[in-house]
């Protein structure tokens, strides 16, 4: 299926037939040319028929900012269908509208705010260093499994102060909630039962102990959490696991791939390691780990002359907006020292803007500081396998070798 699509010329089909929700276009990395055509010819685009039903695509940078900022007209609420084109019901605050969203976000936000992150930095660095020191030299291995997954799992365990030896459970639960195909939401909830039980136990424990810097302890001692019911608590724990898992993992892989494709940028970075924070932002833009967020119109709205009706599904394609050269100069290129490098869409905007963005940036920064410190050269030996998804924009594997 993927191979026939990749030979399809996006300009050869009638524009109304374009369906950018087709996961195969992401897997074979051809969706970019479809987005390009939409940005040029029909930036607010209606697809009347797709596997996810009829939906609108918003493809230009500024239009996305406008929709993302307008939570009154564009709902995130799970009762309207939530935040992904494929309906996914889960009770957590990414899929809630105000005022409920605001209260719960306020409870979680300080946990991943700069002062608390400073307390966690040392431990994150230690564990990153250990993973790198353990890598084989001169033989091929899969960067995704060996580094990106291992490292993000260890980080999650660190952040939650989750029993370290059982940390593989975190990846398992995260996969069950987003990536693994499962027949029904009822079945998914059944598979997640052990996760809820485990965290329920930890929560009670942390509540009894004095407050600590880990996310769970902070949540257990917060005022808003005391008012959450069990389903909401579980939903929010999962949100923190999932939010920081695939996204950070795929950015780690992306950084290796981007440097491989742009050796001049790696040279720049080696000569000037002070560019690391800027390079981290550029990698997050270049990758755009979440291709879209979905909204549902709560009223009739006109956008660029198009009539969006109450109840319509809308996808804000961050992946497209981040390649909009009307907003970002030379948007297709990877330039680690570009001007206004932080001005990208990958974290979203408005009241739902990613609450974990500082944490994600910190993890990436530490990874690259430790890589450069060791003067490690990661050689990419073949093309990556990409994820079959219109939501998670990432990699299943990337063969590499450490050559120094």
């Amino acid at each position, binding site marked *: 299926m993927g191979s026939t699509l990749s030979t399809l010329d996006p300009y050869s089909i009638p524009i109304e037939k374009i369906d950018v929700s087709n996961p195969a276009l992401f897997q074979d990395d051809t969706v970019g040319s479809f987005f390009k055509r939409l940005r040029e010819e029909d930036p607010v685009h209606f697809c009347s028929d797709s596997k996810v039903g009829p939906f609108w695509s918003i493809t230009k940078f500024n239009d996305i*900012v406008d929709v993302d*900022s307008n939570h009154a007209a564009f709902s995130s609420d799970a009762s309207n269908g939530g935040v992904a084109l494929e309906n996914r019901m889960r009770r957590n605050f990414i899929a809630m509208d105000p005022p409920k969203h*605001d209260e719960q976000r306020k409870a979680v936000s300080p946990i991943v705010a*700069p*002062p608390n992150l400073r307390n966690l930095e040392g431990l994150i660095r230690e564990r990153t260093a250990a993973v790198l020191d353990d890598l084989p030299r001169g033989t091929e291995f899969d960067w995704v499994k060996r580094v990106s997954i291992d490292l993000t799992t260890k980080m999650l365990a660190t952040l939650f102060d989750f029993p370290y030896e059982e940390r593989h459970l975190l990846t398992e639960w995260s996969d069950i909630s987003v990536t693994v195909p499962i027949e029904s939401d009822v079945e998914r909830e059944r598979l997640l039962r052990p996760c809820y039980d485990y965290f329920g136990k930890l929560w009670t424990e942390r509540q009894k102990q004095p407050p600590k810097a880990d996310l769970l302890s902070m949540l257990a001692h917060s005022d808003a959490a005391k008012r959450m019911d069990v389903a909401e608590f579980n939903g929010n724990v999962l949100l923190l696991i999932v939010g920081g898992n695939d996204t950070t993992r795929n950015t780690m892989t992306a950084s290796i791939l981007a440097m491989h494709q742009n050796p001049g940028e790696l040279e720049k970075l080696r000569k000037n390691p002070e560019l690391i924070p800027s390079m981290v932002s550029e990698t997050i833009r270049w990758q755009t780990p979440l291709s879209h967020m979905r909204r549902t119109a709560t009223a009739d709205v006109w956008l660029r002359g198009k009539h969006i009706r109450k109840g319509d599904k809308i996808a804000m394609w961050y992946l497209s907006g981040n390649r909009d050269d009307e907003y970002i100069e030379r948007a297709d290129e990877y330039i680690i020292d570009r001007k206004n490098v*932080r*001005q990208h869409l990958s974290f979203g*905007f408005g*009241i739902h*803007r990613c609450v974990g963005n500082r944490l994600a940036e910190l993890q990436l920064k530490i990874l690259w500081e430790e890589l450069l410190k060791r003067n490690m050269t990661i050689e990419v030996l073949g093309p990556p396998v990409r994820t079959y998804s219109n939501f998670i924009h990432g990699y299943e594997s990337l063969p590499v070798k450490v050559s120094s």
Partner: protein
Amino acid sequence: MPRVVYVQPTGTQQEVELAVGSTVMSGALANDISGIDGDCGGQCACGTCHVYVAEEWVGRVGGAGERESEMLMFAAAVQPNSRLGCQITIERDLEGLTVHLPDGQH
């Protein structure tokens, strides 16, 4: 051009002249003043240009607008004198305006 003073959490002060019509956020970015990120480019959609307006200026600068208050709600360590720098436009009568920077943007 009005002079604006930025005070870092460490107490270090930086004084710059800003054109009328620019903002406290854009002025910081243009003058490499650290501590303000401005991730949305001034569209009141990211909250990473959080500043504290010096007490003696609060009356003149005024309070936050509706959408601004919404974004501020999620900034770290919000105080009654918190504002978003991109929503404070430099005018002639703001000569000497002083803003304090928070301990990190979130």
